[in-house]
């Protein structure tokens, strides 16, 4: 037996851990500030005034409005706090599970420092309003490239370590790490595909509905593969270590791992239920989410039941406390997730704070507590000492727990209450009972409780930081050195053919093919595919019953071969996204829409839209009237029977701005037609002057509004010079702009801005501007036609404009569009044949 001595690289682990704690505090602090801004819009200027002891005076800075802070908060918590925590956990456990030092110290170093640089870049660009306008994918394109590069470096370092391993078989934690690395790379790259218009701005290649679909495929699976699978891997390593008990069930590990990675990826469309997303995609999103419940709970069971026999430690060991609570929150969140994915529940919950409560039970309860447990377990080992204070860690636990419960309960109440109020009608059943702002006012107490809960969690986490700091100071940085046996068992020599041409894989792949045929084949052929699928499943179960040992041995061998294993994981995660996104790219195009097609933005309106995106308006305002009564009654226009948002209305929007939460009302019908006799001025739901005063001071329009004022939009100039390049990129992306040269574009923007300015500064009741009190109307027109506020008003007045596209008869059946076949069954067929209730009555024989 050969043995060899190995010193693990624990320095990288220490660095990642320290940065995780630092960024964690920053991210949570930003979250608390942003939360209080929803209760007190003054928590910008007033906050600055307080922390500068009165030196700062004013309404506030543009850099810390809610619209810019929220992306900073989400990105910081996900990528900086959990990201660094995950890397710390992965680097520590992978070395030990592979019985080898990380392959390359240089790559570890580049990974560690590169990631911190990315975070710093994010912390500068997001408050500056540089954003792509897609949630958790806000970072601008140069940073996207850096993220992708660093991720690849992480992947190379990780897989290289696997290749050098002295432990032939892969432990379950490593399966989850592999799934994380492969899937996050895929998601990140696809959702960040963009064409730059400048060094700091780009348009995503997907638009409208397709951008929505890709975004939530990414957004949902960022939760799945950035916040869940790596933490499950960490749970599988650190929890049995801390509890000193065997993992509950190896079989459960296998079943829940493969089902989790396969099913999770399909669930993205549940973020778009009851929208203009085609029904079949909504069905897949909802039904796969329900199927996800059991695989998720498999992880919870394996965590909690591993603690059997170690529950006594719950009283004494803070690590076990945090792990037990963290896994429990995981179970709660993964039960709530499928619940919220049911279309009927989602009607109420979507666009409310219930969703915010849901993500925080995951982020604070699962991620935050698993992180704390892991830090408390690691710190004494990384600095070869004892934890500085167990009672401080216990205190952290209780403060944090109370914080989470307050937070989550407040958001549940707020979400349900607001959802119910928004849908409540007067007794006549034809008019709505509450104005939007009344529902916002009704949840103010919950908002305050939420901020308080978040603050408690932050305080607890600061205790953790102190404890870890003191622990580190009491010891010395320590790198474990161990003697390991170089294995004689063979590893990594399974030929690829053997991996794939095997019963389990063959059944699974054939099953997936039949599944797709069932979804997409025309009527009757699809039923045949379903029957074939059921038969295949029966045969598969039968085969497993007979040859279970063979299947088991195959999987055992697979675990000795990391590359084939990785390839199979990649196949499992590619299928779901491909089946949902590719058909949509082919089918849902502007030449195949029902009824309504978006009108193109003029250059000025496009500039205004970019300002809307840059200010992060989508963090509070949606642009999507769902096919639901509360939405259509509230936001639809009188005189239209079908005034929900149609698929074609936003098809040229790069990026889409459907939003995910409504702290303010929906804006999909804010725009309107051109004013008679004008080529430039539109008259939407509200007047230009209304918008002018409202952006100056939202309390002017409604005293209960919590929207911040936007004084800088009245001072800064619109970047007209950037428009030619922007429109060129839009054209490249398929937006059918007429050919315009640079001069025409700039002139068009200026003409429209001048016309809109005239409606403000001329006429019977001109507005004035306190920044230019002496200026004449003509001077104000000349000055303001350059400024951002006018571009933004132009966009507001255009928002949601479309032209009607007449189509004869019912839709044609389209390949890859299951809904188009459905519309040919039953009633629609009758409609096509011209058979209506009236014609039937006529056909009745009369005497």
């Amino acid at each position: 037996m050969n043995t060899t001595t190995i010193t693990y690289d624990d320095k990288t682990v220490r660095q990642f851990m320290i940065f995780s704690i630092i960024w964690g505090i920053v991210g949570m602090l930003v979250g608390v500030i942003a939360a209080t801004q929803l209760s007190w819009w003054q928590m910008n200027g007033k906050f600055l005034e307080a922390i500068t002891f009165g030196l700062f005076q004013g309404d506030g800075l543009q850099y810390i409005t809610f619209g810019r802070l929220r992306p900073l908060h989400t990105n910081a918590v996900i990528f900086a706090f959990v990201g660094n925590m995950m890397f710390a956990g992965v680097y520590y456990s992978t070395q030990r599970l592979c019985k080898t030092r990380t392959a390359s110290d240089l790559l570890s170093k580049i990974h560690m420092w590169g990631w911190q640089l990315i975070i710093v870049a994010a912390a500068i660009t997001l408050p500056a309003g540089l954003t792509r306008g897609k949630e958790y994918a806000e970072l601008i394109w140069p940073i996207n490239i850096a993220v992708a590069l660093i991720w690849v470096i992480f992947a190379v370092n990780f897989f290289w370590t696997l290749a050098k391993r002295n432990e032939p078989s892969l432990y379950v934690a490593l399966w989850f790490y592999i799934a994380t690395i492969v899937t996050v790379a895929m998601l990140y790259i696809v959702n960040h595909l963009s064409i730059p218009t400048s060094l700091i701005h780009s348009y995503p290649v997907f638009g409208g509905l397709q951008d929505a679909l890709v975004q939530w495929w990414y957004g949902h699976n960022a939760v799945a593969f950035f916040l869940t699978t790596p933490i499950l891997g960490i749970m599988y390593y650190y929890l049995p270590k801390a509890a000193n008990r065997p993992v509950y069930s190896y079989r459960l590990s296998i079943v829940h791992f493969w089902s989790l990675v396969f099913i999770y990826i399909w669930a993205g469309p549940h973020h778009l239920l009851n929208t203009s997303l085609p029904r079949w995609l909504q069905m897949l999103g909802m039904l796969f989410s329900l199927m996800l419940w059991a695989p998720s709970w498999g992880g919870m069971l394996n965590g909690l039941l591993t603690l059997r026999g170690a529950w006594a430690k719950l009283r004494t060991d803070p690590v076990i406390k945090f792990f037990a609570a963290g896994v429990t929150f995981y179970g709660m969140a993964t039960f709530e997730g499928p619940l919220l994915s049911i279309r009927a529940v989602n009607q109420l919950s979507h666009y409310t704070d219930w969703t915010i409560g849901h993500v925080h039970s995951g982020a604070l309860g699962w991620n935050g507590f698993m992180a704390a447990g892991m830090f408390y377990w690691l710190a004494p080992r990384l600095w070869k000492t004892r934890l500085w204070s167990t009672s401080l860690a216990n205190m952290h636990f209780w403060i944090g727990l109370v914080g989470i419960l307050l937070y989550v309960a407040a958001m549940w109440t707020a979400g349900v209450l607001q959802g119910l109020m928004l849908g409540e009608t007067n007794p006549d059943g034809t008019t709505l009972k509450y104005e939007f702002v009344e529902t916002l006012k009704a949840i103010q107490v919950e908002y305050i409780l939420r901020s308080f809960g978040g603050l408690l969690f932050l305080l607890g986490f600061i205790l953790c930081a102190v404890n870890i700091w003191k622990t580190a100071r009491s010891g010395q940085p320590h790198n474990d050195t161990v003697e390991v046996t170089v294995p004689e068992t063979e590893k990594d020599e399974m030929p690829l053919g053997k991996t794939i041409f095997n019963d389990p894989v063959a059944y699974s792949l054939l099953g997936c093919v039949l599944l797709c045929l069932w979804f997409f084949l025309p009527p009757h052929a699809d039923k045949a595919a379903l029957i074939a699928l059921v038969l295949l499943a029966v045969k598969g179960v039968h085969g497993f019953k007979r040859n279970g040992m063979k299947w088991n041995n195959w999987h055992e061998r697979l675990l000795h071969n990391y590359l084939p294993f990785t390839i199979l994981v990649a196949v499992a995660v590619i299928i779901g996204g491909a089946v949902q996104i590719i058909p949509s790219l082919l089918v849902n195009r502007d030449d195949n829409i029902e009824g309504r097609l978006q009108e193109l933005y003029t250059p000025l309106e496009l500039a205004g839209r970019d300002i809307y995106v840059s200010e992060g308006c989508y963090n509070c305002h949606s642009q999507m009237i769902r096919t639901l009564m509360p939405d259509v009654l509230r936001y639809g226009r009188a005189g239209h029977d079908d005034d929900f948002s149609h698929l074609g209305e936003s098809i040229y929007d790069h990026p889409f701005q459907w939003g995910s939460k409504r702290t303010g009302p929906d804006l999909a019908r804010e725009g309107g037609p051109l004013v008679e006799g004008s080529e430039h001025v539109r008259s939407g739901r509200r007047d230009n002057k209304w918008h002018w005063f409202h952006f100056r001071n939202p309390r002017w329009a409604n005293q209960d509004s919590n929207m911040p004022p936007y004084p800088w939009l009245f001072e800064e100039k619109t970047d007209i010079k950037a428009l030619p390049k922007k429109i060129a990129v839009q054209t490249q992306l398929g937006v059918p702009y007429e050919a315009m040269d640079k001069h025409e574009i700039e002139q068009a923007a200026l003409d429209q801005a001048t016309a809109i300015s005239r409606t403000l500064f001329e006429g019977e009741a001109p507005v004035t501007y306190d920044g230019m009190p002496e200026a004449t109307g003509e001077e104000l027109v000349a000055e303001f036609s350059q400024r951002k506020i006018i571009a933004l008003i132009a966009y507001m007045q255009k928002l949601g404009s479309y032209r009607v596209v007449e189509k004869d008869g019912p839709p044609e059946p389209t390949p890859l569009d299951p809904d188009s076949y459905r519309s040919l069954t039953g009633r629609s067929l009758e409609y096509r044949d011209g058979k209506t209730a009236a014609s039937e009555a006529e056909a009745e024989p009369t005497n």
Partner: protein
Amino acid sequence: MSDSKDSNDSEIRRGDFARKKGEVVLREHEYDGIQEFDQKLPNWWLFTFYGAVVWFVGYWVLYYYTDNYRTDQERIVAKVTEVKERREEALAATLSSLSDQVLIEEWATDPNIVASGEATYSQICIACHGAELDAKMSGVPLPGRPLNDGEWTYGKAPMAIFKMINEGTPPGEPGYNGVPMVAKGGGSLGPKDVAELTAFIIAKNPQDFEGATFDESGALVVE
């Protein structure tokens, strides 16, 4: 590793598969000291999983293969149409009970009606027409038309005011400063709310409606 073996574990056998039912097997392999049991999957867990799969197939089959369900679009259009019909009925009922005379002499003199009209006004109208109906806020002009200047562009008769609020600026008219008012009926205001608003506006302009005379149908006679 050996320290993990407390008294319970003496019954545990090692092996790589649970061969005998009910017997908990500890797998032979260890990873950095971590051991694994090979418990059978809990039945309730399996049935949750199978149940969700069956639900998937059943739901899809019911929706796509039977004619029992409408599409979301069909359903919402049907509902909106129904609401519209009910609104029209309610409007017809309200209109049949109203006249200029009724609005001026009964509604505008009833303090309860005027108060609820005022409540609606301060929710909805105030943003454009101002708290004092002068279309100003702290001296700053608001987008709306002043409602206290004795000018009734679209007719002074209360029923005309009602119609104006309910349906908005008549089609083709430019509106105030080129800005037409959007119809306020439907949405959050029923015909009764609109009538109360009308009463409130009348009550706020007594000089225009004092000593009004009416014809037999109750319509205002404009001198």
